[in-house]
């Protein structure tokens, strides 16, 4: 980002190559809408580009990036006439968890598990979902998540634990129920 601020145009391409995939992954989990997630990825980078002259490295670049992305995602989720997200959690069309197993049953089980995880993740409150994803998957510290979500570190600790606990209980309940749809 500092190179971009100094006028190195190729630095922006490098930032895009490095961060577009994790951002898309985060935004798609937040929105459950592939098209909207792509739009927001572009919007995040447009904002980065606009702010290139004003950027001050007070925090890690990734924290700043996720802060922009989180704000955009929360705004998008609160839009009154937001279109219905695509349904990717039916077991036929659901993405399989990344398994190396070649056995068909394992693939089917992984698909079922992936569908359930996506569905239960989507049911979490927005900030819990963001906090858990940024911590557990993207590897941000509580301090960084606090900055991205604009809440205190203590709040992040509570958000992450509530989200993880809820997900654990629901996945356990789903497993006990034989992998049913679990439409609570």
């Amino acid at each position, binding site marked *: 980002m500092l190179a971009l601020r100094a006028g190195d145009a190729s630095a922006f*391409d490098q930032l*895009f190559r490095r961060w*577009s*995939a994790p951002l*898309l*992954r985060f935004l*798609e*989990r937040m929105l459950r809408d*592939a098209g909207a*997630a*792509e739009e927001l*990825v*572009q919007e995040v*980078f*447009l904002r980065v*580009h*606009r702010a290139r002259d004003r950027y001050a490295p007070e925090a890690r670049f990734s924290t700043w990036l996720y802060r922009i992305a989180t704000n955009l995602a929360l705004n998008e989720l609160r839009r009154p006439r937001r279109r219905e997200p695509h349904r990717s959690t039916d077991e036929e069309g659901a*993405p*399989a*968890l*990344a*398994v190396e197993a070649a056995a068909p049953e394992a693939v089917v089980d992984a698909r079922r*598990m*992936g569908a359930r*995880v*996506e569905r239960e*993740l989507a049911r979490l409150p927005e900030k819990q979902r963001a906090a*858990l*994803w940024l*911590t*557990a*998957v993207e590897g941000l*510290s*509580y301090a960084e998540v606090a900055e991205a979500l604009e809440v205190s570190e203590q709040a992040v*600790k*509570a958000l*992450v*634990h509530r989200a*993880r*606990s809820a*997900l*654990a*209980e629901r*996945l*356990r309940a789903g497993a006990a129920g034989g992998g049913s749809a679990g439409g609570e």
Partner: protein
Amino acid sequence: VAEIAAGCRAFDEDLSALLDGELGAERRAEVEAHVAGCPGCAARLAELHAVDGALTALPAPAVAPDLGARLEHRLQQERYFESHRKRFRRISVPALVLPLAAAAALVLYLALRVPAPTQAPVEPIPVAKAPVAPDPAPQVARREPAAPPSEAAAEPAPQVAGAEPAPAADELDALDAEDLAVLLELETIEDLPVIANLEVLERLLREEAG
């Protein structure tokens, strides 16, 4: 949560923080010691840890191959508007006042223009104690053959511009709808309808002038 024993509740919230490496050394030692002696908390810690495994195992969506190109296209649009904005920032506000006033007068004139009267006024204005009574007809006659409104509308600016020098006049001659959008600091995406309307206005003005 209901299954958590009363003695374990003080440790429960710290189980996530333990997984995330967010506990200080002292608290971490306490929690680890408790988990080591408590099968319930050990099971719960494993369950919480499994959630992270399930999340990280979700397949990552693929970035569309043309996403970078689409972003570049939007950036080009932004750069275009940025460069225009900078160009017009060089024009000082006082230099704009006169030409803009002329433009406003033109718009008002076009909006309020009344077709030339087809008959003479009913009552001429009487002139008190004039030695010779004025004939109202010449007034109308003078008005009729005067430059038709379309001609007057075509070139109102030089008359006004001649009254005071306008340093930015050359640049303003080239103003089109897009430039106006930049002048008015309209945003590319949000104000597209406004920009579209400016284009319609510009076309109407050209038709009127031409």
